[in-house]
């Protein structure tokens, strides 16, 4: 099972006790998110909506790969990879 490092943006650090980087494991992004939700309640719900899809306000990169353009939640998460959770940056005028 792949051990990965998850980079958490400041926008979600209140869910990880302030940590900007947390460990997780799983062979796919879906499995990793399941572990994140178990260890940091609420974090998984910030990433995935009620239908089980990645939220529009979130991007996840496995190293340099944007999972939205790969296999989304079924994207493999190789051992030693880094998952970058990226919150959208947006506003109006």
């Amino acid at each position, binding site marked *: 099972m792949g051990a990965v490092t998850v980079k958490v943006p400041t926008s979600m650090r209140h869910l990880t006790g302030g940590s900007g980087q947390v460990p997780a494991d799983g062979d796919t992004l879906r499995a990793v998110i399941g572990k994140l939700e178990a260890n940091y309640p609420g974090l998984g719900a910030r990433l995935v909506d009620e239908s089980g899809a990645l939220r529009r306000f979130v991007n996840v990169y496995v190293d340099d790969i944007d999972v939205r353009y790969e296999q989304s939640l079924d994207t493999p998460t190789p051992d030693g990879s880094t998952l970058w959770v990226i919150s959208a*940056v947006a*506003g109006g005028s």
Partner: protein
Amino acid sequence: MTVALMDWWMLTDFIDETICQYRLSLKTRDLDTAQHLPRSWGLLLGRFTADAFRVQEVQFGTNVRETSPLVLQEFEDVIVPCFGSAYANGGRGFWCDSEDVLRITRHAESKGLEVLGSIHSHPDWHHIDPAHERGQRLSQEPTPMDEYLYRNTGWPLNLICYVESRDNEIFHTLGGWSAPSYVDAEARAQPITIRYTLARRALKERTL
């Protein structure tokens, strides 16, 4: 109370861009169709403690508001129906390319900084027009659409630079705002006080 601490000069590039955008919009103010909608924005980088953000850098990215299918879908499904047809205009609002957010996040990490949030401009539509925007009266406070985006993106520091022209001069006000709670739909963005550096050293060494 949380405060945002910064050096005024750090905003120079953002302010220059804001003025440039604003002047372009003034040139087309009498036209009844959208010619140029002033829009400037950037990401805020810095450090934070329990009660203060120390903003140290502004970085800029690519706006995908009008090109990303995902973003266009969000505007069509939620933002326009909820916050008005004005937002059907692709010149309204910004959305940073996620590749740029990742790049800037890595840049911040390499310098021991964090991405704290964003800054964007609000023009005085009610003064400058164009005609189809006359009903908009903005300020340095977040619009309902801003609050929706702040809630969903969750960044802890959100700055709004309100720009207004009077008597051939341009003025501004900077407002700082928290993200409304993600789990409380009634929660509102709360103001964050902005303080500018007054002196680089609190204690000056005596020279003999």
